[in-house]
Structure formats: structure tokens, C-alpha cells
């Protein structure tokens, strides 16, 4: 089953997170634990790790602000 990649909550007051950069392109293989993208709030930049292994399908746009919980891609 495909695993959704959703925007995580990155702090007490964070409701919006900017998707800064994808580390993998469409269809590339990722392993659980690989850093798949970086996310930014007004306070911090965080590297987000894959929580599943498989082919990645990024749908979120780099440089765009998303709400916590928004789906920005899938794995598998």
C-alpha cells in the first residue's frame, strides 16, 4: 500500500510549513530513514526521513507553503 507523505507539525505554533527541497525525483527508490525532503518554518529547517521504502512520487511543489497534514507525495 502506498504510504502518504504528509506535512508534519514542526513546533508548538507551527501551522504552516514550507516544502524547501526534494532530495529525490519522481520514481526514484528511497529506503526508510533516507532524508527525502527539507521543510522550513519561521523558526527552523528540518530534514524529513522516509518512513517507508519504495518508489517515491513527490507531488508537493518546492518553495510552497503547506498546512500541517497536507499530502505532498507518496512512497510505494
Amino acid at each position: 500500500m502506498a504510504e502518504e507523505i504528509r506535512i508534519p507539525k514542526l513546533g508548538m505554533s507551527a501551522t504552516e510549513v514550507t516544502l524547501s527541497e526534494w532530495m529525490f525525483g519522481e520514481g526514484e527508490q528511497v529506503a526508510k530513514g533516507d532524508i527525502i525532503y527539507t521543510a522550513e518554518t519561521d523558526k527552523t529547517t528540518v530534514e524529513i526521513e522516509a518512513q517507508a521504502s519504495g518508489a517515491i512520487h513527490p507531488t508537493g511543489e518546492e518553495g510552497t507553503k503547506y498546512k500541517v497534514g497536507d499530502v505532498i507525495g507518496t512512497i510505494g
Partner: protein
Amino acid sequence: MAETAKEIDRDKLLDIYTRTMKVNRTDEKFRELLMQGKVAVMYYCVRGQELVSAAAMAALEDDDYVVCTYRGQGEQTAKGIPIKKWWGECLGKATGTCKGKGGTMHITDPDTGIMVTTGVVGSGIPIANGLAMASQNNGDGRVTLVSFGDGAANIGGFHEAMNMAQLYKLPVVFLCQNNRYGEHTAFADHTDSPNIGERAAGYGMKGITVDGNDVNQIYPAMEEAVAHARRGKGPVLVEAMCYRMMGHFFGSDFSYMPEEHLAEMKAEDPLPKLRKVMLERQFTEEELDKIVADIDAEIDEAVQHALDAPLPDTDEIYKDVLEETA
């Protein structure tokens, strides 16, 4: 104290290992859910501090009292809080220990002795005195253990509570988990004290500083501290040296931690060290892996239960706030 410590018996060691892995697997699962964006709550990671919590809880009796902080997952799960209720509370669901109205920073479950969890730094310390004083008055033989951080040791309430607890010989154990940082401030930048344990002398109290990454140091120290308090000899301040291996909370970066600190932290990771001790004491790889697999299965079930559970009803907002008078 630790030099003369006898070997921890095998059953106790297995108990500590099981509690440690329960804390660790819960922490890993929580970070996974947060990274996936499946769960959006505040969570203060306990990676690196699992053994301290597990050893402390293993030294207590089931009906002893515990007071902890926002970074209290370790004490809560290691003390044996029912994990379905724990996950329910963390996810804000009606099935939680506080009916989903407390959340991760206010986990409370008196049935397992988790008396209060607070997010106000240092505030648990005087509260622990109150619980210990009640036990002293009632003669119920309980010990209260309060866990707090190195940063909390600079709060006024810490000093007041230390002085009072020693004066009245309260049955309380003060466990300072010195993870070397208070939020983003390193230990040396928030105090000139060489350590926290020595401060006990200023109150005439027994105090020690111990390696929280070595089961053969931390457990005997906790056991002795709890016994001292239970015998009516008064409180003990135990400073457990450990590392916070993640940022202050999930999602906060830790680029301010110097390279040498990160390297030192990795070398001192309590989990591989504990595993090594277990193998030396003739536990098998299979036995140890089975324990972790069983814990994982239990956690997965509890997480699913919490994800499926309902949110509290809106009329719950007015319940459990003021005492109902007839």
C-alpha cells in the same frame, strides 16, 4: 556508592531491559508518526534518556508516586501506564488517561502512580513534596519520585523544595536528568555549578551524580536512593548524566550542538551498552529481539486503537474543571 554495588540480579536486569525498550520503541513510533504527518501534536523526544527512566521506574514499587515533565514518556511507559490509554491521551482522544483533554504534556494516571505531568519547568518538584508529605502523614510507605531536567535545577522552586524536603525528611527522590541542555542552552551556559548532585550538600541532603548510560551505575544508585527515602532517612538528589540525542522537541533542529558533543553522545548511547551487558549476562540475541518484537506489536495495536478512537465530546469542556457541589 556505585563502586561497592553488587551485580544486578538477572530478573531485575531483564525487567530494566524490557522497560528501556518499551520507552525506546514508543519514542521511535512517535517520531515515525510525526514524520509521516499522521499525528500533529507536540512531542519531546526521549532518545538517549531511556535507560535513566527505566532504571528509576524499576527501582520503585508499583504504587509509588511519580511526577514528571513534558519529556515524561520514559517515566510514564516504564512505570506501566496502560499504553492504549497513553496513546489515546497523546492523540487527544476520548479513550485517553485524561479523556483526551490533557495531551502529551499533561499525562496523569493515578492508578499507575503517574500523579501529574507538567510543562511548567521546575513546577513538579514542590508538588512531589506535597505527595511525599501526604504519604508521611498517612504512613502508607510510598516513595514519590520526581523527574526534571538540568535547566529546572535553576528554578527557585527547586531550591525551596530541596530545603523543605530535607528539613521534614520527606520520602522523596529528586531525579535530575542532566541531558546537558535546557532547550538550546548548554549546561555550562546556564550554571557555574560543576554538577547538580553536589548541590544537595547545601541542604544537608544526600546527593550523587551518576552515569545514566550505564545500567550498572544508574540502577544501584536509584535502588539505594529509593530505599533511603523509604526507610524514613529523608530525600535524595540523584543527578543522572545522560544525553538528549534529538532536538528539544520533535521538529526543532539541533545545529547548535557542537560536533564533539554529538560524537561523545553517540559513543555513550545507552542502548548498545545495555545490549552488551545483557549478552554478557547470558541473555540470547533471540530472547532480546523477541522482547522488542512483542513490544512493537503491542504499540502498533495501541496506536491503531488511538487513531480509530473518537475525539472527546464538546460538552467535556466543562467537565472535570470545577468540583461539583450538590
